[in-house]
C-alpha cells in the first residue's frame, strides 16, 4: 500500500518538476514575443506594461523596410547553404575512403583526422585570420564558408555510416568492373541518404548560428551574417531602431532555425546521438 503511495508522490514530483521547467524555458521566449508586439513609446515608459495591450505589428512592419536585414539574411543563406553542400561532399568522399576502401596508412590517417575533434576553433583563430588576411579573402563568402569545411565531425559520422552498410553491396558492381567512384556514386551513396540529411541539417544550424568566425572575418556590415548582424543590432538599437524593433528582429532571426528544428527534429537528434559513438 505504501509503495503505491510512494509511487504517486514520485509521479507528483515529476509533474511539478516538468511544469516548473516548462515555465522557466518558455517565459523568456514569451517575453520576447510580447515585447516585439508593443510600440516603442510604451516600451520607453518606465511603467509596467499591461498584458491587455495595446498590441501592434508595427515593429515587424519596420523590419520589412530594413534593407540591411535582408542582406544579412541572404548572406546567411548563402554561407549556410554552401557550407552544407561542402561538408556533405567532402565528408561523404572521405567517409567512403576511410570506411570502405583500403590504401596505405589508412588507419593512421583516420586517427589523424579524429584528433582534430579536440581542436577548438578559438585556439586556431590567430593564424587562421592571418591565412585569410594574406590572401585578402576577408569579407568574402569564401572566407565565411571554408573554415567550416575543416571540421572532422562530418568525416567521422560518414565513415561510421559507410562502414555500417552491409558488406558485399559493391561486389556485383565490382564484377561489372565499375570504378571505385561509380561504386560510391551509384551503389553506396544512395544508402546513406538518412545520414546525409542528419549531417546536413546539423551543419546548417551550426553554420547559421556561428558567431565567432564571422565576427572576426566579416568586418564590413554588408558581409555580416544574420547572427553577426544581431550582435551589431543589439549594441546600437537605442539610437537606431528602438527596443520593440530589436525584439522583432530577434524573433525573426530565431524563427528560421526554430522552423527547421521543428520540421527535422528527428534528424537533429540522430546527428547528435551519432556523435557519441566515438
Amino acid at each position, binding site marked *: 500500500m505504501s509503495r503505491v503511495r510512494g509511487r504517486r508522490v*514520485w509521479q507528483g514530483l*515529476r509533474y511539478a518538476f*516538468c511544469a516548473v*521547467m516548462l515555465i522557466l*524555458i518558455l517565459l*523568456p*521566449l514569451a*517575453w*520576447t514575443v510580447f515585447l516585439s508586439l508593443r510600440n516603442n513609446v510604451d*516600451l520607453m515608459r*518606465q511603467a*509596467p506594461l499591461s498584458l491587455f495591450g495595446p498590441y501592434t505589428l508595427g515593429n515587424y512592419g519596420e523590419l520589412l523596410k530594413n534593407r540591411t536585414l535582408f542582406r544579412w539574411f541572404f548572406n546567411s543563406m548563402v554561407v549556410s547553404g554552401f557550407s552544407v553542400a561542402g561538408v556533405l561532399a567532402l565528408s561523404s*568522399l*572521405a567517409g567512403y*575512403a576511410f570506411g570502405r*576502401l*583500403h590504401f*596505405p596508412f589508412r588507419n593512421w*590517417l583516420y586517427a589523424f*583526422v579524429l584528433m*582534430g575533434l*579536440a*581542436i*577548438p576553433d*578559438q585556439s*586556431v*583563430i*590567430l*593564424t*587562421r*585570420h*592571418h591565412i585569410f588576411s594574406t590572401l585578402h579573402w576577408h569579407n568574402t563568402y569564401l572566407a565565411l564558408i*571554408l*573554415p567550416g*569545411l575543416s571540421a*572532422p565531425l562530418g568525416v567521422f559520422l560518414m565513415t561510421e555510416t559507410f562502414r555500417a552498410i552491409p558488406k558485399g553491396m559493391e561486389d556485383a558492381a*565490382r564484377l561489372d*568492373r565499375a570504378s*571505385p*567512384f561509380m561504386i560510391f556514386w551509384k551503389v553506396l551513396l544512395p544508402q546513406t541518404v538518412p545520414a546525409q540529411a542528419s549531417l546536413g541539417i546539423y551543419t546548417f*544550424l551550426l553554420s*547559421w*548560428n556561428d*558567431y*565567432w568566425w564571422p565576427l572576426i572575418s566579416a568586418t564590413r556590415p554588408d558581409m555580416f551574417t544574420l*547572427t*553577426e548582424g*544581431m*550582435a551589431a*543590432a*543589439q549594441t546600437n538599437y537605442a539610437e537606431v531602431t528602438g527596443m520593440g524593433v530589436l*525584439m522583432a*528582429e530577434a524573433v525573426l*532571426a530565431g524563427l528560421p532555425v*526554430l522552423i*527547421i*528544428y521543428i520540421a527535422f527534429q528527428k534528424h537533429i*537528434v540522430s546527428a*547528435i*546521438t551519432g556523435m557519441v559513438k566515438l
Partner: protein
Amino acid sequence: MAVSSRNEATRGWGNLLFALPFLSVYVWLLVYPLLAGIRLSLYRANLFGGEHFIAFENYVRLFRDGTFLQALGNSLMFVGLTVPVLVLLALMLALSLNRATRFAAFMRSVVFASSVLSVTVLTIIWRQVLVPDGGLLSHFSHMIGQAPVAFLNDQRLVLPSLAVITVWWSLGLPMILFLSALQQVPRSVYEAAALDRATPWSVFRRITLPAVMPAVILVAAYECALQFQVFGQPQLLTQGGPNGASRPLVLYIYETGFNHWDIGYAAAASQMLFALILVALLVPQAARWLHAFLKGRRA
C-alpha cells in the same frame, strides 16, 4: 584474375584521392593553424610583421598577468557553475521524459528548442529579462515590493547570471544524450525487476544509474570542453565587466589578439585554452583506462 583486380581496386594509393579534398582543407585550416599558433606563441609578434623569438617568455608573462589570471579563474568558475547544474537538470529531465506520452514528446521538443537559437538571439532575449529598468525580472521584483537587481552590473552576480543563461540555452543536448542512453536498456530488464517487486529506488540504483553513468561522464567532459569556450554571452552582455568579473579566457584572447594586436601573446593564451580543453576531454578517457587496469589487476 578477379582477385587481383579487386586488390588493385581496393588497396592502391589511388583510393586516397577520395579523402584528399577533405584532408587538404583539414590540414590547411585546422592542423596548420594549430601548429603555426604554437610556433607563434614562442615569438613576440604584432600585426605589423615584427617577429622576434623569445622562447617561453609569453607564457611566463601570462602567469604574471593579473588580467589573464582573472580570466582563467573566471573560465574555471564558469565551468564549475554550469556543468554540474547542466548534468543534473538534464538527467532529471531525461528521467522524467523517458516515456512514450504526448506530453513527454512535447516537453522534449521544448527543452531542445532554446538550443537551436544563436548566441546573439540568446543575449537579446536575456538582456530584456535581466535589465533592472523594465526587464522581466524587475517586474517580479516590483510585485513583491523589492528594488530590482542589476544582475549584470554586480561583480558577484554577473558570472552566476551568465551561467543561468547558458544552462537555459544548453540543456537540450545533454538531455538528448541521456535519453538515448536510457533507451538502450531493454524493457525486459525493467519488466523482470517489476516481477521481482523491486522498489523504485533499487531499480534506479541497480538498473538506470549504471545504464546512464557512461553518458554522464561523457557529457560532463564534453560540456567542460564546451563551456571553456564561452564567449558570446559575456562579450555581448557585459563586455567582460564589471571590472573583468565576467571576462573568460576566449574574450581575453579576442581582446589581446584583435584589439591590442599582441598576437604572439594571444597565441600563448590560446594554447592554454587548448590545453584546458584537452585535459577536460582526456580525463574521462584516462579514468576509463585506469578503471579497466585496476579491474584487470583485481581479477
